[in-house]
């Protein structure tokens, strides 16, 4: 690097850091160009905004591009989410484009060997397999799909093929949050927003480690302390983490203890007559599960019945079930009983990856509703997402096996009819039977066709199930040797999934394409393509459209609308069709914008209103519902269901749960009986195994492990063990062990008193490392409503490598 360029970059870095120091206060959302003012351009460098590619926080970055290459990343100080801050992953987000082993050509397995082929052959191969057997095709997607990508895949499957076998990896990380919101409010996604973190007096983290998983959000909270504000952090968890280090109180619970704790709080609120009677009388119903066939709707129960059912969850009984001392349960109940303070609850996969995931989500909402800690800034039950567009693409676009865009479902004839109307399809085009959810989809794919395995072709986009599915030996590895099964994987790097792929498609990523994401606080964020992808890598959305068009050319009826036009047809101003299925013409128009505007029609149906695409171009995201004002401007909503902010609350009402499942404007306070975990330690497998993530790596590590700083900082997965357990087993720091469950095993080095500190009898393993597949061991038991598997608790044993049988 020459001296002039070096000094230019140094001055840019100093300007970026200096402006963050100067802008120590919170910043409003501003229009695009304002924020780049103090990032010097010159030397051919330009800056443009984009949301970070990693977690669901949705931080914005400024991307510095020079000579067609991303050369710098700066925190975006105009972004309301992160106010210029980034975590260590966000700081390296530009580096993920430039791993040495990017996939650059389509590869087809011929006689067992991966062979380079042309795109035409790849698209034709896929279209032919689908044409021959459309109902045995499945599409497995992602909370990393952009909104247009997910919408295109959704329309392709449910509209084009009349096939509902489409599901995303978000089924594995936040499906129980969805069912918890639906069961409680009748509509999905949090009512509050990140402003709650700036205003709460108490923050409760329920089996959640935001210090590592949502670090920028957590620093919003700890930053308040450095400004002299008081915020009490209460960490409820199964192991001590970096979040615990910052917490005032740590409540260590047994696995599944959260269910008992929330029941215990509600018991005390009722027992002490300390709940918010007025809020409950005006705005809530009580609900319990039906005895014979429980549904998400449940059945109405009276307050007296609720009291009767919850009576046995005394603090002492809860202590027995959860391991948390009765006094601590009383402390929590006293806090919730105090209406002068504001309480925010945060959770993520710890609560969602749970065989009682829907129940525990509903119960925590219930604690907030019963106590009236709801709907004021700082008073909120909030579920965070792990992926950048789990909310936007999965929950809003509805890329789940049972859903349609905008909160519609395939099982409802009216919803299907509305959707067919928007897509200009013939009546009856959409199949009424929900498709396979993730676990079932992979069961059917890895089961021999002769034994009823009725998924024969699977297309995986933007995710890595060969590493992230639970019980990998049963749900993924069994694909090997099944000659008639065909796995298509689109990705940016070789992964544990591409190992078994029959066809690998090189994908463009992040700022190599246009995109729109929706983050954890209902914020929709847009960006433009800034650099070209390497080699022959292409956009996932283009792949879907190109396959659809190939089927259209082959005469597949479903790819035509009612008027005989291609279902993804885009026309220019002269009314001529733009051939967006040819990659050379894909960027002749903004396909994202066309798809987004089409999708936007669905968003008004459940009051998830989105603004026109061009409004997002100007902003650092807007939180839905976004409603047009008299002066033509668009206003976002921070606090849903609260009369002071939500435009859809009936005038004069303080609160209005306008999608109430009981159609009376009320939210539901649920009772669920505590049930033990699906698998418990025993003599043979005496330890609890929990899996999760680390600060430096994002999910399966495909991207972050290719950034040398991140890889060096956290090079390998490990097994966290309690020192006493290690001593009892004669295991020393760094020693290699085999961790084993009834489903499989994994070899790991031991880390004692490391990043996390598990209590006796429990072990923890992060899942980012493709060389150490801990999901060989995890359990595929899942929640009956959300179908989300429980990765957080199963029975395992640990053996020193030398002592383990080979």
């Amino acid at each position, binding site marked *: 690097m020459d001296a002039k360029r070096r000094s230019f970059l140094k001055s840019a870095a100093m300007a970026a*850091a200096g402006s963050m120091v100067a802008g120590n206060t919170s910043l409003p959302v501003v229009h695009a160009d304002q924020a780049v003012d103090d990032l010097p351009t010159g030397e051919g460098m330009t800056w443009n905004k984009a949301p970070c590619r990693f977690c669901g926080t949705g931080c914005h970055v400024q991307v510095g591009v020079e000579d067609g290459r991303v050369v710098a990343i700066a925190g975006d100080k105009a972004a309301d989410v992160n106010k210029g801050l980034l975590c260590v992953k966000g700081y390296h987000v530009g580096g993920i484009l430039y791993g040495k082993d990017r996939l650059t050509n389509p590869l087809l397995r011929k006689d067992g060997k991966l062979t380079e082929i042309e795109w035409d052959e790849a698209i034709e191969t896929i279209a032919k397999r689908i044409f021959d057997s459309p109902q045995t095709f499945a599409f497995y997607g992602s909370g990393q799909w952009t909104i247009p990508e997910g919408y295109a895949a959704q329309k392709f499957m449910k509209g084009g093929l009349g096939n509902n076998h489409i599901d995303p990896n978000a089924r594995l990380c936040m499906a129980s949050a969805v069912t918890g919101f639906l069961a409680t409010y009748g509509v999905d996604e949090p009512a509050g927003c990140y402003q709650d973190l700036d205003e709460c007096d108490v923050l409760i983290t329920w089996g959640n480690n935001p210090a590592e998983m949502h670090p920028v959000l957590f620093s919003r909270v700890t930053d308040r302390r450095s400004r002299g504000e008081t915020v009490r952090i209460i960490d409820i968890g199964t192991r001590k983490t970096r979040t615990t280090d910052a917490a005032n109180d740590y409540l260590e619970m047994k696995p599944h203890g959260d269910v008992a704790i929330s029941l215990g709080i509600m018991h005390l609120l009722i027992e002490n007559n300390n709940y918010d009677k007025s809020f409950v009388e005006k705005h809530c119903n009580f609900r319990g599960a039906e005895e014979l066939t429980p549904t998400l709707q449940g059945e109405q129960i009276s307050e007296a019945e609720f009291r009767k059912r919850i009576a046995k969850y005394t603090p002492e009984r809860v202590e027995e079930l959860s391991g948390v001392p009765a006094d601590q349960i009383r402390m929590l109940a006293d806090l919730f009983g105090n209406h002068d303070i504001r309480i925010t609850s945060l959770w993520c996969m710890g609560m969602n990856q749970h065989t009682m995931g829907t129940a525990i989500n509903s119960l925590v909402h219930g604690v907030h509703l019963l106590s009236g800690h709801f709907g004021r800034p700082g008073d909120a039950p909030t579920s965070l997402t792990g992926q950048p567009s789990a909310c936007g693409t999965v929950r809003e676009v509805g890329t789940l096996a049972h859903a349609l865009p905008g909160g519609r479902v395939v099982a409802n004839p009216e919803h299907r009819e509305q959707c067919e109307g928007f897509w200009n399809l013939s009546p009856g085009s959409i199949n009424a039977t929900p498709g396979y959810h993730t676990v079932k989809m992979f069961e059917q794919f890895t089961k021999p066709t002769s034994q009823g395995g009725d998924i024969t072709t699977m297309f995986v986009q933007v995710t890595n199930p060969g590493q992230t599915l639970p019980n990998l030996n049963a749900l993924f590895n069994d694909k090997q040797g099944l000659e008639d099964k065909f796995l298509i994987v689109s990705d940016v790097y*070789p992964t544990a999934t591409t190992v078994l792929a029959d066809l690998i498609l090189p994908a463009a990523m992040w700022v190599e394409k246009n995109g729109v994401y929706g983050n954890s606080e209902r914020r929709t964020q847009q960006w433009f393509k800034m650099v070209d992808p390497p080699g022959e890598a292409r956009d996932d959305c283009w792949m879907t459209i190109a396959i659809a068009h190939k089927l259209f050319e082959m005469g597949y009826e479903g790819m035509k609308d009612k008027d005989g036009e291609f279902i993804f047809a885009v026309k220019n101003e002269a009314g001529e069709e733009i051939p967006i299925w040819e990659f050379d013409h894909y960027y002749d128009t903004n396909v994202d914008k066309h798809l987004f505007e089409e999708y936007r029609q669905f968003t008004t149906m459940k009051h998830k209103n989105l603004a026109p695409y061009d409004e997002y171009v100007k902003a650092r995201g807007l939180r839905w519902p976004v409603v047009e004002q008299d002066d033509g401007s668009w206003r976002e909503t921070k606090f849903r269901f609260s009369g002071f902010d939500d435009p859809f609350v009936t005038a004069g009402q303080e609160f209005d749960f306008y999608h109430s499942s009981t159609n009376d404007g009320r939210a539901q306070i649920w009772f669920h009986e505590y049930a033990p975990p699906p698998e418990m330690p025993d003599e043979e497998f005496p330890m609890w195994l929990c899996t999760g993530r680390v600060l430096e790596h994002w999910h399966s590590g495909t991207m972050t492990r290719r950034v040398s700083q991140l890889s060096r900082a956290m090079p390998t997965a490990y097994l966290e063990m309690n020192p006493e357990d290690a001593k009892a087993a004669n295991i020393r720091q760094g020693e290699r062990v085999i961790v084993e469950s009834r489903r499989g095993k994994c070899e790991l080095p031991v880390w004692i008193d490391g990043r996390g500190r598990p209590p006796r009898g429990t072990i923890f393993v992060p899942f980012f490392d493709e060389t150490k597949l801990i999901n060989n061991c995890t359990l595929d038991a899942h929640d009956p409503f959300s179908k989300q598997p429980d990765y957080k608790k199963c029975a395992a044993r640990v053996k020193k490598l030398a002592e383990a049988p080979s």
Partner: protein
Amino acid sequence: MPISGLVITFASQVEEHSAAIESLHEVPEIEIGNASGSKLAIVVDSADKRRDQQIWNMVRELPGVIDLAVAMVAFDEDNETAERESIRNLE
């Protein structure tokens, strides 16, 4: 040769942490910028990624430092690729 703009957050006002500031002055790769309240801007210009990491760790460990955030990072032309290739390609 990484260049990064960083923001250090101290437990209290920056001027109360003279020992830490002195330690920062002793590192030739660090340039000190503005301070306001408990926050201080610095730029690190190091010879290689390993040294960058060392400096990062050293700053994080300084007495009184409670957080280290990144404001900007500049990449080299040939950089940011992992030293390890994916395990799949080595097989």
